[in-house]
Structures are given as C-alpha cells and as structure tokens.
C-alpha cells in the first residue's frame, strides 16, 4: 500500500516536473526572438558549450573509432569480410555511436557547466537582481545558452563522426592492413545520404533535449550549494536517459 502511494506520489511529481519543463520551454521559446537580437551573447555561448568541448569530443571520437576498428576487424575477419570494415565503422558511427556518445559526453561536460552556471547565478541572487533591474533573465541569460548549445551539438556530433571514421581507418587500414580502396569504396556503396541525415537529425534532437534539461535544472535549482550540486547530477542522469530513449524512438521511426 505504501509502495502504491509512493508510486502515485512520484507519478504526480513526475507529471508536475513534466509540466514545469513544458511551461519553462514555453517561456524560453517566447524569449528567443528577442534573444536573437544579441548575437554576441549567443556566439559566446557557442564557444562555451561547443568550442570548449572540442577536446573531449575529438579525443573520445578517436578512441571510439579505434575500438570500433579493432572490434569490427576482429569480427569480420572470422567471416572473411574485413573489407567491409569501412561500412561497419561508418554506419555504426553515423547512425548510432556518433550522436549518442556525443550527447552523453556533451551532457557531462557542457550540460553540467550550463546547469552549474545558472544554478550559481540563482544561488547568488544574480537572476533575481536582473529581474529587479527589469531585465528578463530568460532573455538575457537562459536563451543565449540554450541557443548556443543547440547550435553546438549537431556540429560536435558530425565532428565526432568524422574523427571516429578516421579512427576506424587508422586501426583498420594503417594497422591491420585492410585495403584502403575497398575500405572507402565499400563505405561509399553502403552509406547513404539518409544515414547521414539520420545522424544529423539525432544530433539536433539530442541537442535540444540535453540543453533544455541543463538550463532547466540550473534555472530551477535550489539556491544553495547543495541545490546546485544536485542540479548538475540530475542534468547528467536525465540527459543520459532521455537521449537513449529518444535514440530508440528515432531509430525505430527512421528504420
């Protein structure tokens, strides 16, 4: 009985949170047109979320690609189809690994940065001070961060994919001696524009989700040190779960 009450209590909490996020999103979208009038703020945020994440994204991409190359080569070797390594690597990265891993890394690096920045501004009354100075913090602080992140995510995704393929090539061709020509030609023959589109769309959708969660958690964090910490943890957890759920849905639709 207590369990049931807990579950329904949590269900209402959940519904409340969903409602809260939706209303927040509504306010945010409403402020976007005016936020676009200050491109310098958005550029600064693209830098904050995107350019500063490049190192982690590119490094991880290289290793993910390399591992994919290793695993792919080993597996395909058993069927005598090592030439298909290009196909396997590219399709795996473009459709799944690229968007999903990028989103998870993004949530961990940029998402937490956004959440903690906004949470700290909340805790030190900076957001309230802005409201008192008749400046809407949604327009001045939240919207530029959201837009900056929205632009950064798909770019990071494609960079991840490209570097990842390079990583596959490094291991497969340079290391294991897979024929370079077949590597690329088989890839070209099997990867279609649709697949690339799917990867980019996933990047955009995950970007929307992860950025929304990060700014929401930061903005609504409890104005204490503990609250900020909790907000950043929740950002990573919820972003990860939501990303994987959306991944399943998009893959199912686009298959």
């Amino acid at each position: 009985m207590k369990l049931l009450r807990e579950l329904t209590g949590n269900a209402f909490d959940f519904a409340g949170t969903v409602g809260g996020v939706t209303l927040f999103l509504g306010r945010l979208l409403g402020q976007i047109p005016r936020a676009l009038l200050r491109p310098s703020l958005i550029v600064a945020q693209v830098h904050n979320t995107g350019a500063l994440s490049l190192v982690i994204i590119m490094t991880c991409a290289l290793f993910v690609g390399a591992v994919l190359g290793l695993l792919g080569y080993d597996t395909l070797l058993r069927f005598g189809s090592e030439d298909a390594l290009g196909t396997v690597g590219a399709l795996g990265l473009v459709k799944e690994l690229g968007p999903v891993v990028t989103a998870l890394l993004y949530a961990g690096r940029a998402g937490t940065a956004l959440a903690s920045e906004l949470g700290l501004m909340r805790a030190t009354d900076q957001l309230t001070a802005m409201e008192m100075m008749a400046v809407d913090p949604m327009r001045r602080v939240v919207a530029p961060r959201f837009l900056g992140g929205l632009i950064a995510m798909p770019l990071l995704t494609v960079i991840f994919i490209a570097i990842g393929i390079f990583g596959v090539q490094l291991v497969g061709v340079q290391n294991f001696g897979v024929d370079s020509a077949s590597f690329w030609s088989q890839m070209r023959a099997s990867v279609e524009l649709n697949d690339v589109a799917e990867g980019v769309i996933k990047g955009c959708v995950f970007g929307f989700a992860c950025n929304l969660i990060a700014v929401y958690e930061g903005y609504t964090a409890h104005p204490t040190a503990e609250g900020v910490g909790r907000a950043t943890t929740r950002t990573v957890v919820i972003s990860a779960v939501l990303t994987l759920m959306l991944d399943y849905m998009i893959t199912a639709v686009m298959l």
Partner: protein
Amino acid sequence: MVSAVSTPASSAQSAAVTESLIEIRDVHYSVGGRSIFSGLNLSIPRGRITALMGPSGTGKTTLLRLITGQIKPTRGQITFDGIDVSSLKTKELYALRRRMGMLFQNGALLTDMDVFENVAFPLREHTDLPEPLIRNVVLTKLQAVGLRGAARLMPSELSGGMNRRVALARTMATDPEVLIYDEPFTGLDPISMGMIVRLVRHMNNALGITSIVVSHDVKELTELSDTSYIIAAGKVAASGELKDLKGHQSDIVNQFVNGLPDGPVPFHYPAADYRQQLLADSE
C-alpha cells in the same frame, strides 16, 4: 536619466496627495499553509530612511518581494506611488521596477563581467545611450561609492564591502526613486560598515532618495534611520524612531531591541521534560 526628470514633478504632485511612497494595507500572505503576514500595515515615507527589522524568520525578505511585485499578497493591498503593485502586468511591473533599486545581501554582481560592465549593465539593457555617455555615467557612479579605480576588477577580486559598494553603484545607475537595502551591514568589518552607512545617508540627503533598510543591526540603524518598523508574528509590533523603542512595553520588541537572549522568542527549542529524558533508559 529619464527618472531624474520625472522625480521632482511626481513628488511635487504626490506630496500634495500623500507623504508616503509605499503603502502596505492589511496585507496577508501565506505559503505552504503557513501564515507569514496576517494584517500587516505600514507606510514608507517619501525621502526618508525607513528601517524594517524583526527576529529571524519573520518574513522581512518576503515583504521586500511583495513590495517589488515578485509575489502577490493573498489579501490586502500594496501601493507604490498610488499604483497597486499586484495588479500590474509583467511589462508594467518591469517599468515600475526601473524606479526602484535593490541592493542584495551579497551584492549579486554578475560574475562574468568586470566592475565597469556590471555598473553599465542596466544602462546597456534599458537605454540606447552612446558609449562615451555610458562611460561617464558609470565612472560618476563609481566615484560616488569610492571605487572608480577598481573599474576593471572582476567581482571575485573584490572584498565583501567593495562588492556591496559596486552593487550600490549599479543600482544607482538608473537613478531610482527608491533604494531597498537587504541586510547591507551583514558580515562587514567596522570600516566597511561605516562606509556603507555613510553612503546610505549620502544617497538619502543629497539625492532625496527614499530608502528602505532591512537589517538586524539595531545599533547602526538607531543612528541611521528616520523611522523604523519592527515586525514580529506577522504584524507590525512597533513603529517609530528606534531610540524611542528601547523601553517599549511589548515583550517581543523589548527582547529584540535590547538583544535579550530569552523572552517571547525562547532560548530553548521545545523539548520533552529534561529530567525525564535523562532518566529514561532509551531514547
């Protein structure tokens, strides 16, 4: 700036109508089932320094939020210069807030900008002033608080007192009619405190700004404030000049003003009988 032009006219008009800038009439406010205010009545006189005091948790910050329109009272009315604050829509509320300035307890400077940019912030957001003019205004305000030389420092490099002075300069940038100080003396050394006191006085004398100071500091406020309100148990417990309140008949006012450790606000948190608890075998 814009408000500087309007202030003399409006105060000349309203002086005939009312002496008080902000009126709080029979305000009730509760949150989460707990009643914070039940019939609060006070008025903030124009051009004077008014102190708002009370024991911890009486809702002084809540009162400020009611005045600035961040929250609405469940009953009662709050008027600013005759305008009912809770009836305003967002745009009008923002316009009203431009006439007020609020100094937060921790300064609340924007941490990603330097001192100059912080003070210039309201000007950049609300006016289209050319850059040289903004520069002059900012430097003037910083000069008034004695921090013109610190214009290029970042907020993290400032001490607590300097932080608050910059925040004061920032609120002054748009020449508000009212300045609200939320616990301006907390955590300052005597020198910095002296500076803030002097600045509050100066703003009031030189510029005729109505000042509301929320604080615990009875000693400083005794010299500083013209009138004061002591708020306890959701109502105004006492009002008047602070030095007159030292011998007030109300117990809670007496305890507060004289800093007595025990009284209506008890020393001991409610607990079971001491002897019984000690003698009990288990908790």
